[in-house]
């Protein structure tokens, strides 16, 4: 019951701030609302007992990506003064796309309904609602870390991502390196 109430509050918050992101003409406010929306998503992760993911959401999306967006907005001052409409010429087409993506996801979730572990067993008090055993939860970070380096799990995507980041690092150093003619 409490869980449901909190879930509804957090979801309404996430969706409402998301709506502000799309409709607000003040880009700076839109970026702030985007942050609030990310915060709401982090709240959903907490409700799902995924603490590490929630903290990573805060660190990466609010602490890094949003700041990057705000810097981009601030450095292009003209963008703050625009009075154009928020819609381009294709609102109908994008609405159709959005609705069909939603329909596909809903259909998939519906097909998977026998896996929904939402109903608590009868007589179980609310406090012990968690389906995941506590020992696994306490160890979830270690399990996540191990899965990144285990050949059975995600070692390949993990290493590919590392190489991508390394390439970006080397590239940025190369771009920032003082050229001979600058000296």
């Amino acid at each position, binding site marked *: 019951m409490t869980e449901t109430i909190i879930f509804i509050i957090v979801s309404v918050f996430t969706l409402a701030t998301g709506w502000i992101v799309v409709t607000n003409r003040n880009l*700076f406010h839109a970026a702030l609302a985007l942050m609030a929306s990310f915060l709401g998503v982090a709240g959903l992760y907490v409700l799902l007992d995924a*603490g590490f993911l929630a903290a990573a959401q805060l*660190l990466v999306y*609010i*602490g*890094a990506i949003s*700041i990057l967006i705000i810097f981009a907005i*601030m450095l292009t001052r003209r963008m703050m003064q625009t009075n154009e409409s928020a819609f381009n010429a294709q609102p109908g087409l994008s609405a159709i796309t959005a609705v069909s993506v939603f329909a596909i996801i809903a259909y998939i979730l519906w097909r998977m309904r026998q896996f929904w572990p939402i109903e608590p067993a009868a007589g179980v008090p609310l406090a012990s609602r968690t389906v995941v055993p506590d020992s696994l939860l306490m*160890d979830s970070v270690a399990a996540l870390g191990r899965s990144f380096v285990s050949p059975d799990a995600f070692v390949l995507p993990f290493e590919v991502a590392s190489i991508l980041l390394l390439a970006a690092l080397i590239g940025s150093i190369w771009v920032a390196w003082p050229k001979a003619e600058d000296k």
Partner: protein
Amino acid sequence: MSFSIVEFLKSLAELTTANYLRQVWGNAPWVELVLDIIGVVLVSSFGLIIVIFLIWLERKLIARIQDRIGPNRVGGKFGLLQSVADAMKLLSKELITPNGADKWAYNLAPYLIVITSLLMWAVIPFAPGVVGVDLNIGLFYILAISSVSVVTILLAGWGSNNKYALLGAFRSVAQLVSYEVPMILSVLVPILLARSMSTVDIIEAQTVPFILVVPLSALIFFISSLAETGRTPFDLLEADSEIVAGFHIEYSGMKFAMFFLAEFLGTLFMSGLFVVVYLGGYRFFGLENFETAGGFALGNLFGLITFFVKMFLVYFVFVWVRATLPRVRIDQMLNLNWKFLVPVTLALIFAAAVVDKLLPTGMGDVSRAGVHLFSNVLIGIVTLEILRWHGRKQRVEQEARVSRNLEGVEALAAEAVSSEAAAAH
């Protein structure tokens, strides 16, 4: 179980009041909620009230270090009530919103920055068993929350509609975002040694305090926490002589005080975090497990006192640094971070991981700590040698440049003399 005042006081001394209240109130569903709320109120009011004392302490200490007397009028000889008077004054001042300010951002920022600096206290263990929540991602949680505080500074700087505020905010973000990197990396070493990110587990793992195991990591953590709290020598965020006061220049009254509150609270928090991660938290040679003959567990209380003594010792070092060091330039600050701290911490993590893996599993804690200490000292010596070599190279180049210039000047002077002589003829 019925309520008895003696038992209640006894549980207060043992710091197990929550358990006692649980016994008294039974298993009703509201009990946990009420206990949680009491805990939140206690920790936040501790944070908000201790700042009054911290401001007095800092002013007094800096005054003594600089051979002044400091506050000495309000509240007796030592000026103990000076900060209370200041708080009253700030409370009674008018809150001004400048023309053209972004009202949402401007008014939200002071509250958000205090909230973020209070939220971090949730995972600090004050004494054995006295911790808000023992998250398995404790340190990661702290880093995540502190990255949110960067956003609030941008809010304040942009919302004020003032070029100095915006410049200050840009500087802050550059500084906070870059010093987050060595901070996260240096704290990874204790995490590696303790094999956990939980603050309680890290304290429990410190048979030998980590400052004696990995002193370099502790030093780098301390330097970057100085920068993260924006204190001297890294106080370019509010460099009075350059950008007046930085991002909070337009704020008045209590909203201005909120930023100061957050700064002092953040500094105290960083001292507390340093104690937890490197100084063994509430541990002091087993004193935290002390029990009287009657089974009266006074150890928790001793643990609390130990934690506070250590925390204020570290806080004193913060104040000491502030009172004695000049401010660095922005290019020096960024160079120190990216060209010195980050490479050294990367080497430290590498060394800690390799050494830890190579040591046999049955080894005692003390000898294990000794090997880690040795590898740290080795890295320190190598770093110093590289720095010395680099410094010497730069000095030689500089001297060569100066002597070249001198030759040029002498040649010019000789030419001038000869032409003068020619004119005199």
